[in-house]
């Protein structure tokens, strides 16, 4: 039997890797890729708590489906913003997007 801690530690590690990616990546699309890693870590947590808790209560699974919808919405809007910025400024490097700095 796998204790719940295995899932939780894996999810924490995945979350940290994703967080690191969000902080260090220059390319805006790569930042969004890292956000996906973090969302997946969250989903693993939700589903494992559902499985190790009361399986008759579907809240964990319903919540993770909502996370899917949120992830899809985030990707759609995020990538469109990246593309929009690319068309105006011809770059997707987050550090070079300095319109809001002054």
């Amino acid at each position: 039997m796998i204790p719940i801690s295995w899932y939780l530690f894996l999810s924490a590690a995945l979350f940290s890797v994703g967080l690191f990616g969000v902080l260090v990546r220059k390319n805006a699309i790569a930042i969004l890729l890292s956000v996906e890693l973090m969302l997946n870590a969250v989903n693993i947590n939700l589903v494992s708590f559902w499985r190790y808790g009361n399986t008759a209560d579907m809240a964990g699974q319903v919540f993770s489906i909502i996370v899917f919808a949120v992830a899809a919405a985030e990707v759609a809007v995020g990538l469109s913003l990246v593309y929009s910025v690319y068309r105006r400024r011809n770059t997707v490097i987050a550090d070079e997007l300095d319109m809001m700095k002054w």
Partner: protein
Amino acid sequence: MHNTWLYVGLFLIVGIIFPVIPLVLSALVAPRKPNPIKQSTYECGLETVGESQVQFKAQYYVFALVFLIFDVETVFLFPWAVSLNIQPYFVVVEGILFISILIAGLSYTWRKGMLEWA
């Protein structure tokens, strides 16, 4: 007794390995004499101009966006469809409300001319 997911997992593994067998067989018996002409990009005999990985049309991207949203929508519709038989009739209305909200989005993009091939 019969473990469903064990079977699916094994099927995925075997299904990936199986197509590799003819490739390995071919690599063993087929001749290999590469030269620059053979390995060049095939463009009907013309010289390749510029980069090969060309930028693609933005219109494909819009269709991908619409697809992404509708794909997630169908995910919600599957549990709804399965439990229609055991639920009271007003549940149907909930699903139809769900569908029509998204159809409204599709018709908005249609009206605004964003589906047209620009």
